[in-house]
């Protein structure tokens, strides 16, 4: 019976500890992790950033950074061999030959100085005696299989000539060329657009079933993992908090952290959505035929919409759809080439001097990258006080200070953090400071450009909550831009969908979500629905 068991489990990890030198406290990056991967199954590993999910897999293959000193303890058995007991040479025989890897960022995972063909065939030439001509034939065949069209022509092209999704296909081909038994995919879809994501997941699933591969699928995205994994491992702060079959984890989560993770996914529409009255006199913002041209392409193509006071308008679209450019054009961070923007009837795009300054006070923005949106040389206090001082809301320093303290409280930051610098805050905390800055001058319109996409899922939930509370309390009108349909659905009263610069659909959230009319919107909605199961 024992032989059968061993046949079943391909990889077995017991009591794995990983520690990086340099951290003063004896904190483990990976602490007492044990799991197994059975033949032919897909094991999902989920966790937020810093949970140790990637470190675990890299440590098994000796892929942790060479220069950074680290210690790895524990047992890991792959098939018959003890991974930690192997010589460097024998480990290399397993790595790349019997275990393939796919990485997160396809943009940087390929060598820019080598053609994709050379890179894909490299393991074949290195591990076997295949001739270059034979290898070429095999590579073309495999590239076709992973969906590179015209592979025979494109085999000598360099990575920068491919899109992100195509590069990821190349990386997958590279991982599969030795017909490995185990494929480790580290966040393979996180850097990709939703629709591309779906293709890559389908590709990995196909490859798995055709080859009877075992797969370790690492992701922070619960929806994706739910979609693909047979069994799931949940990690938090270097430890495995829960593992089990897909349905157990997602339908009957036992551990509080798993429950928290699942609860953080926005599943519902915005409660008590905004009631639209017919009267147009209440219009706050009126965008007419806006057009932005980059080089010879239309980044924003004839976009028009109006917003009513107090509503939240979500704008969704993939990267390059023009949603960010649209918001930048509205606040004049990017010059519009044509069209008009009226704010309370005042033309925003052509105003100057005092008029513009008073408009600036009324229209504020929150950005995507919480670190880059705060000046690293200013304290939280200085950052939040700047708009107050600029717009002369408070003339004496004392009341300014008081106001800043109150704002810190409003966004949920302790007063003690007032004189700290951005690098001393976490990403979520930085985003709170950015929000405090945006509401400091009591604006009427808030534009949030992907405000939660750089954050972990639990932090994301908190920030969304904060935004919704503020919108209500301050009677704000908000444009909320995101690539994530579920998030947009959660916060918006109405949704606008953008694709290649055009506004292809605009309607009340539930209507768009349940009856998407545009082809692209349907694709977006489908991915979200399938992930929610």
């Amino acid at each position, binding site marked *: 019976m024992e032989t059968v068991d061993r046949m079943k489990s391909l990889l077995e990890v017991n009591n794995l500890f990983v520690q990086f030198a340099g951290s003063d406290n004896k904190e483990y990056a990976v602490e007492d992790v044990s799991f197994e991967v059975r033949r032919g199954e897909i094991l999902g590993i989920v966790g937020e950033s810093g949970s140790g999910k990637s470190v675990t897999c890299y440590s098994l293959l000796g892929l942790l950074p*060479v*220069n950074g000193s680290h210690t790895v303890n524990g047992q890991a058995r792959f098939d018959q061999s003890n991974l930690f007991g192997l010589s460097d040479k024998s480990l*290399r025989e397993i790595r790349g*030959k019997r275990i393939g890897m796919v990485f997160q960022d396809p943009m940087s995972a390929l*060598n820019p*100085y080598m053609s994709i063909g050379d890179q894909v065939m490299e393991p074949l030439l290195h591990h076997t005696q295949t001739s270059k001509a034979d290898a070429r034939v095999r590579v073309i065949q495999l590239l076709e299989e992973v969906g590179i069209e015209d592979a025979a022509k494109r085999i000598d092209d360099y990575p*920068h000539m491919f899109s992100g999704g195509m590069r990821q296909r190349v990386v997958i081909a590279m991982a599969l060329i030795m017909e490995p038994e185990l494929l480790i995919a580290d966040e393979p879809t996180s850097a990709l657009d939703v629709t591309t994501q779906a293709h890559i997941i389908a590709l990995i699933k196909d490859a798995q079933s055709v080859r009877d591969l075992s797969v370790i699928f690492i992701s922070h995205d619960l929806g994706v993992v739910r979609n693909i994994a047979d069994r799931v491992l949940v990690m938090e702060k270097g430890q495995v908090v829960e593992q089990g079959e897909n349905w157990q984890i997602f339908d009957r989560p036992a551990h509080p952290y798993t429950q928290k993770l699942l609860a953080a996914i926005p599943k519902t529409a915005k409660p008590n959505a905004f009631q639209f009255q017919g009267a147009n006199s209440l219009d706050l913002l009126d965008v007419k035929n806006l057009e932005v041209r980059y080089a010879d392409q239309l980044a924003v193509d004839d976009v028009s919409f109006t917003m009513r006071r107090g509503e939240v308008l979500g704008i969704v679209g993939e990267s390059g759809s023009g949603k960010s450019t649209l918001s930048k054009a509205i606040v004049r961070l990017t010059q519009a080439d044509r069209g008009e923007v009226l704010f309370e009837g005042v033309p925003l795009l052509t105003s100057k001097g005092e008029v513009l300054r008073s408009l600036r006070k009324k229209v504020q923005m929150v950005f995507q990258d919480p670190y880059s949106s705060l000046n690293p040389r200013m304290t939280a206090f200085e950052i939040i006080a700047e708009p107050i001082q600029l717009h002369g809301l408070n003339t004496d320093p004392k009341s300014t200070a008081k106001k800043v303290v109150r704002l810190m409280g409003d966004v949920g930051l302790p007063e003690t953090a007032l004189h700290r610098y951005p690098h001393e805050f976490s990403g979520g905390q930085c985003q709170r400071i950015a929000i405090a800055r945006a509401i400091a001058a009591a604006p009427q319109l808030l534009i949030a450009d992907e405000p939660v996409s750089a954050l972990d899922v639990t932090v994301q939930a908190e920030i969304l909550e904060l935004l919704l509370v503020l919108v209500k309390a301050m009677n704000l009108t908000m444009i909320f831009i995101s690539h994530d349909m579920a998030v947009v659905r959660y916060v918006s009263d109405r949704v606008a969908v953008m694709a290649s610069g055009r506004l292809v659909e605009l309607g009340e959230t539930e209507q768009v979500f349940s009856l998407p009319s545009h082809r692209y919107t349907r694709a977006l909605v489908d991915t979200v629905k399938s992930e929610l199961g």
Partner: protein
Amino acid sequence: MIRIALNRILQGIPVLFVVITVTFFLIRQAPGGPFDAERALPPEVIKNLEATYRLDAPVYQQYFDYLGNLLKGDFGPSFRYPGRSVTELIATGLPITLELAVYALAVALVLGLLAGLLAATRPRTLQDYLPMALAMTGICLPTFLLGPLLVLVFGIWFEWLPVSGWGYAPGDKILPSLTLGLAYAAVIARLSRGGLLEVLSQNYIRTARAKGLSTPTILFRHALPGGMAPVIAYLGPAIAGLLTGSFVVETIFQIPGLGRFYVQAAFNRDYTMIMGTTILLSALIVVLNIVADLVSIKLNPQLRQKHRHE
């Protein structure tokens, strides 16, 4: 590639033109004529001399004459070596200077890359610290100090190598080439180490490791092309530096190259000679810069494509 080359050459022509023009008019601004320093010559002799060298014509006339002659490869007569043309003088000096520069470049590349490679493969170990300490020394020991020190040690104390000349005695090319090349070896060592370490931390190196490739394969096939980018970009300035550096080295080792002519011409106010050498060296530097530029484009697929679309 040919189009890029042509493009670069077209850009180089105005630069050369500026060099020639500025040099020409700058020289005219110099206090005193070329014959002032001579023992008080009678005015009519000076007049004769000026007529011979066409210095009595209007300045613009002289300028166009000079340009015309340049196109024919004629740098005019030397003021100081009567009867010899600047072109002749340059023809004797240039090959020597070029030979010196080539040897020095070889020293710089071989030693520099070796040190950089050693250091980058084992960072923060003795194998890193030692070559880098040497490199720092090389950067902080100027040629005109290093040269005499090498002469003192190997030429005078140990008497291993000749201390002057070029091609007169066996081994007399060693010290000048080392003197000129070591400083650049130091810079190249630092640049290649930095470039390699930067590349070795890239994600695609991790990909290469995940393929099970051996360390030398990763280093030479994957890391070297990207890691060498800073070194290749430095080649242009390095060559310019080598050519100007030859002034000092040729002076120290009494090598009859272009640099030594230049320095002597500077002291003798031999204006045609100064102009000739300035223009020639500038042209060389401009051309070699273009070559270095083309090499770096050739080696980087991304740049290659960018230029194709320009």
